């Protein structure tokens, strides 16, 4: 299946293929799991930020960073890494801006995956 230009920007699915192989069922299953767990972690991240629990911000961003990179959402992974570093410093003005960008990116990844999953399924 040829990838759309938008997919290349948001998610490089070949990264996941290299990791788990070409089995479409496995890939679909993992992306589905990311949709569920990624949403949950993103909610936890926002809640931790609102509660100014910056250590929790770090932990959740750290967790999502790895997951995002596994599915090839490298831009999302990079944002998580930046949020993690910001959280380690106790949070600052940049964290707010990063979280705004994170929300946009996460929403785009979710939309893309939801669309892709529907197509595949």
């Amino acid at each position: 299946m040829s990838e759309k230009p938008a997919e290349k920007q948001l998610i490089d699915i070949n990264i996941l293929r290299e990791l788990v192989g070409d089995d479409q069922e496995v890939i679909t299953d993992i992306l589905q799991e990311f949709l569920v767990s990624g949403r949950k972690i993103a909610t936890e991240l926002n809640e931790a930020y609102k509660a100014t629990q910056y250590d929790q911000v770090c932990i959740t961003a750290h967790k999502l960073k790895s997951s995002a990179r596994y599915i090839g959402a490298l831009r999302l992974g990079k944002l998580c890494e930046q949020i993690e570093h910001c959280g380690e410093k106790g949070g600052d003005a940049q964290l707010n801006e990063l979280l705004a960008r994170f929300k946009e990116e996460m929403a785009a990844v979710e939309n893309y995956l939801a669309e892709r999953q529907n197509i595949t399924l």
Partner: protein
Amino acid sequence: MSYSPTTNANILIATENTTDCELIQRILIKDFDKVFTSSDPSLATADFERYLPNVLILAFNTLEQSQRYYLGLYRQGGAIHLHSHRTIALSDKDEMQRAYKLCLEGIFDDYNLFWPVSIDVNRLAMSVHLALRELAAAEINTPTTAEFATKARKLATLENTLEEQITKGNSQIDKVGHAVVQASKRAGAALDTFSQRLTQNKMSEAVTVKNADQLQQEIGRLKQEAVEKPLNTFLAESVRPLKQWASELPKVSAPHLESIRSLNALTESVQPTLLVVDDDEFQHKIIGAVLKNENYHLLFASTGLEALNSLRKTRPDLIMMDFMMPGMDGVEVVQQIKAVPNFAEIPILMMTGKSDKAIVMESLKAGATSFIVKPIERSILLDRIQQILSNR
């Protein structure tokens, strides 16, 4: 299997509520002779080690308290790691779903709806009976195939070791034989030189030779008696038998080595068990997918406590441990595992999203075998697992 409800089983009720404690004790004492209580949290570990319960009943107001209490036992005591036991958490009706989930995750072995007290007053005693039956069955279990396979894989290295040692032994025997021959030659040459100096009257100040032929004959005899004969005896009685023994060793051990090779071939069909400890379900999914077509049996735990509980039931061939986890972090779990002699030899591969040196050093110091940085790469993970398993 025969089973008596009034066995010597020790039952320990842990709670902070003395009224509940008395009630539970009254229910259980009808069936069990040894029902003890532990109601002072500061004595939790001491009480566990004193009573060594076969069944531990956690009767706290919330499941979170029960979890905290149980985790504390693992953190503070060594006895709980080694002592075979089952845990029953008492729950109220609002927490039943959570209790069910915690048991499925392996945090507790069973739960019992206790608040409000049910009309089925025997329910708790029945749970204890079942837990004891399960323990009794586990104790008579023979060693697992995986345990045999681990030992057999170790035996497989014997053939190479034996070959290496035989080669080394042969070389040493040759060296000894050569050294003795050389020493004899030097002794013979020294006697020849001595004989020549005497016959050429080079030692006339000390000795005068009247009959040179007779002297040479005597020295020749001496050479034969003192040098050549002992050399031949040594070569014939010591070196040659040793060489023969070394050359026959492969033949003598061949049937045994063949058995080891057959045994090792059988182990190929036994899947090594890997325990993956990570609080992130997505990581479970990824690792499961990466290892899907490999010959491994995978077990997953989401917390350190779940992992420690799992070890009491199944001994994995390798533990893959995340560093950053809530409750006990990965390093603390490694320390707990390595502190128990029965588990200390299980290799642990740390998986960390943070590659900073301090974390790596801390993990290795705690006893981890190796580490891998997340996000993991397929080939690196497969190689590392293979490498660790073959080095056991």
